[in-house]
């Protein structure tokens, strides 16, 4: 009876839990996003379905599932339907090394950070496939933007993460969290404020969130790369975007904000609290800042974020060496 290794069962359970977590969080975040949008615009947001509109995302999800899946004329069917799957599937492994608490880490990998960053890169491929397969000019333009933006912002993102890794000397998220103290002034954001700001900026850009949501700029490109997607095709992109937001904020929490550690009892609640604060800030950004122009977006990346992150990395390395 030793045919099924215990590790495999562990991972299957973890992935099932992650799928549940991602789905549930998708619903919650849709609600939070719409509520924040409403209140920022001085209206109540969703209110009719359920108490305070809490069941609105469920109703939306049911609607999305019930819609016809439509493949546009002249599209590349395989690529077209592969794209949402390629967009959503890498989300699962990204949650595996996420250190919710010392006991609540799905898979203890000593290169957890690399795993997350590697799978995060796949999302750009998905957007590219989606735009290319749609046979739609808006889709293609959106995909082009997604690739240019994704590739550009990946670099300062990696460099700012690397600065923290230099400090800790580890690529394991659990170890990086363990190296930080219980109090806010013992967390990495005090030692690496520039890296934190750079990381968060790049994270917003990587997840295609406003003000960097150019691949799906509604006012210019209809819906960008997912213009032609209906029903759950769109739903998967949507879910993947929210899942990526959680990943970006989760990594930020682990790297810069002390992960599960906090004053008083350390535990997963601290991680979730910080995660949600960051997510709400991200949503707050969206309803505050106007969308950047594309040249501004790339100027910001190549002329500011990249040199700054390199400088930050060099200074970090120098300080560590001394």
């Amino acid at each position, binding site marked *: 009876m030793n045919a099924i290794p215990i590790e495999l069962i562990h991972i299957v359970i973890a992935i099932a839990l992650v799928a549940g977590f991602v789905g549930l969080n998708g619903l919650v975040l849709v609600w939070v996003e719409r509520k*924040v949008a409403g*209140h*920022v*615009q*001085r*209206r*109540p947001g969703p*209110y009719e379905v359920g108490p305070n509109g809490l069941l609105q995302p469920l109703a939306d999800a049911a609607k999305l599932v019930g819609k016809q899946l439509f493949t546009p004329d002249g599209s590349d069917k395989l690529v077209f339907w592969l794209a949402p799957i390629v967009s959503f599937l890498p989300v699962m492994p990204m949650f595996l090394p996420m250190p919710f608490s010392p006991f609540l880490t799905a898979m203890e990998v000593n290169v957890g950070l690399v795993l997350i960053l590697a799978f995060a890169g796949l999302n750009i491929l998905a957007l590219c496939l989606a735009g290319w397969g749609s046979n739609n000019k808006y889709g293609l333009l959106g995909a082009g933007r997604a690739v240019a933006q994704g590739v550009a912002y990946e670099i300062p993102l990696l460099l700012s993460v690397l600065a923290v890794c230099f400090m800790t000397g580890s690529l394991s998220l659990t170890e990086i969290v363990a190296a930080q103290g219980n109090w806010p002034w013992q967390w990495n954001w005090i030692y690496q404020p520039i890296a934190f700001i750079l990381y968060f900026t790049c994270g917003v850009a990587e997840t295609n969130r406003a003000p960097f949501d150019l691949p799906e700029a509604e006012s210019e490109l209809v819906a960008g790369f997912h213009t032609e997607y209906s029903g759950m095709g769109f739903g998967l992109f949507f879910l993947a975007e929210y899942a990526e937001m959680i990943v970006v904020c989760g990594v930020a929490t682990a790297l810069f904000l002390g992960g599960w550690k906090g004053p008083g009892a350390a535990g997963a609640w601290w991680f979730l609290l910080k995660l949600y604060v960051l997510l709400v800030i991200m949503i*707050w*950004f969206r*309803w*505050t*800042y106007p969308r950047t122009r594309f040249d501004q977006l790339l100027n910001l990346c190549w002329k*500011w974020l990249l040199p700054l992150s390199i400088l930050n990395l060099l200074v970090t390395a120098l300080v560590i060496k001394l």
Partner: protein
Amino acid sequence: MNALKSFWKNIASLWSLIVGLQVTGKAFCGPQVTVHYPRQTVGPEGLEGFRGHMELVPSVKDPAIPKCISCMMCATSCPSKCLTVVKQKEPKPTEEQLKAMAEAEARGEKVKKLSAPKNPAQFIYDFSLCSFCNTCVENCPVGSIRFTTNVYFATTNKADLQMNLVERLAKQAASGKTVPGEKPKKAAKTETAQSEA
């Protein structure tokens, strides 16, 4: 030196991002300005200045009769041609009056004909043509026409858009729903509008 200056300028301008967050943050915490429609409705103070369909202003003496003097200023000035004012005819003189008139004529006096009442017989307003331009209100010399604040008007029948405003006013007076309180204010408003024009 210039490059360094612009560098610092760029860094300093990051503050504007914080200002933006403050603005939306304040709006987030502040009170809401919309209402949950079926359960709540907008109060009269929220409807001030709303241009619903036109209505006639009742006269001071009789709330069933409009102030209107059938001068046709509104109908002639209306760019959408949505107003039709029908004047009243002079009433037929009774036997006695005819007699009196004949006698007066015989005496060589100037006979005064019976004059028609000034208020209109009919005042037809085509809501489907109206462009809510306020021109009729500005041109009315007696301040007899105004906008309602009826935001809930809806119909599936095009005939409902042809309104007989005189009838409407009479019905309102019969049910005691006329709102004569706004008259002086409205009149003052039209005067200022005219002086501006």
